[in-house]
């Protein structure tokens, strides 16, 4: 639901609930976007992480 939907009311419940959802989705979206863009840059630069362990 977005503020332009007919059901939307500018009250605390809508702001907290829907705001929380968008906030979480934004963090996840930005995090993944950062990873993908950095990956493209890494490939372009030819960086290698082969010797670095993960986990």
């Amino acid at each position, binding site marked *: *639901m977005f503020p332009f*939907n007919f*059901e939307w009311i500018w009250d605390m*419940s*809508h702001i*907290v*609930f*829907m705001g*929380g*959802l968008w906030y*979480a*989705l934004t*963090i*996840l979206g930005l*995090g*993944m976007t*950062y*990873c*993908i863009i*950095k*990956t*493209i840059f*890494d*490939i372009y630069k030819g*960086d290698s*992480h*082969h010797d*670095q*362990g*993960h*986990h």
Partner: protein
Amino acid sequence: MDSALIPNGVRRCSINKFMIALAIAGAVLLWGVYAMFLCWFKGLNQTNMNDYYGFALWIWADLAIIALGGGAFFTGFLRYIMGKDELKNIINYAVLIGFICYSSALLILAIDIGQPLRGWFIFWHANVHSMLTEVAFCLTCYFMVLTIEYIPLILENKQIDKVPFFHHLSHNMHSVMAVFAATGAFLSFFHQGSLGGVAGVLFGRPFAFREGLFIWPWTFFLFTWSAAAYGPCFTLMVTKITEMVTKKKLVKDNVVELLAKISGWMMATYIIAKIIDTYYWANVTAPSLGFNIMHFYSNNSFYGLWILFLEIILGGVVPAAILITEKGRKNSLARNTAFVLAVIGVCVNRWVMVLQVMAVPVMSFDTWALYYPSWQEVATTILPVAYGIILIMISYRYLPIFPQEPELNPVD
């Protein structure tokens, strides 16, 4: 045949053996899928739910696997936020188990709503006064987090890792995993709590109703606490089962003991809070609503005081006592018994808070509503188990789930 896909430095069973095991689990899965499609195409009349008894067996399974999947968020919290570095050796498996639990929970909800094509209504036409809306939001977002945590594991497959884009992507996702783990811990706190909150705010059901803090009943905090306490026990129990099936040591004892110790202390503090909550409910809350404790545990053929004993003493006090003592943790038999008891304890807690709540008579003319699930409910409840076994089998075979496995099981 598939040796090119198997991680370096480990040994796996033959492909034929693997395929036979996969076929057995797959047959159970297909049975569950058949029942699921019956529920979708013929409707919820396939279940034994009715207007009085609105929670099917799978809702208990849903709450139980969400609690058991709590091992992922709490282990992630300990590893990435609290800096418990040893847990890097079990975090992959915790994530995989969490992924299975949460994808299963969403699948169960998709069956439960009866009309899965309208599943998006909860996001678009959200009832912002419902704790279940918050649960749906957090479950969905946290499932995304678990998917993001699981993807780098898939990308570490020997063949996929050869592709430069996937190799770099895996590395970059690992480098920002703390952000995702923190988001996951935040989301988990709220959805685990709200699942407990749903029971606690039922003022028309004195068995579940609790007082609390502001808008949150005590069950809100108890559910979050119990998921963080018992979830790691499930991770450790499944790890032990995997070790028994594969006949290999996969995680070093110091890692298991560390997680068991933290889980034990969480459980000990939780069970003290739970006992206080139960005592206050039995002596103040329920009497204030016109009930005494024996009303909830008598005059029926199933629910007695034994279930309270099983949940709190056998499933709470005993495993906590074992895991907080060094002697108990170091004894393999005692430790594994504690894991099993803890898993039973949290499952019984969710059973009580979902199914017993519905069964207890509320009105003076009511009788106990004991509930017998239909075979479709049983099949769809077993479906996630078969799905989980299959995903674990495939992941274990082709992905480096256990970083210590090559060291503990050197290949000649």
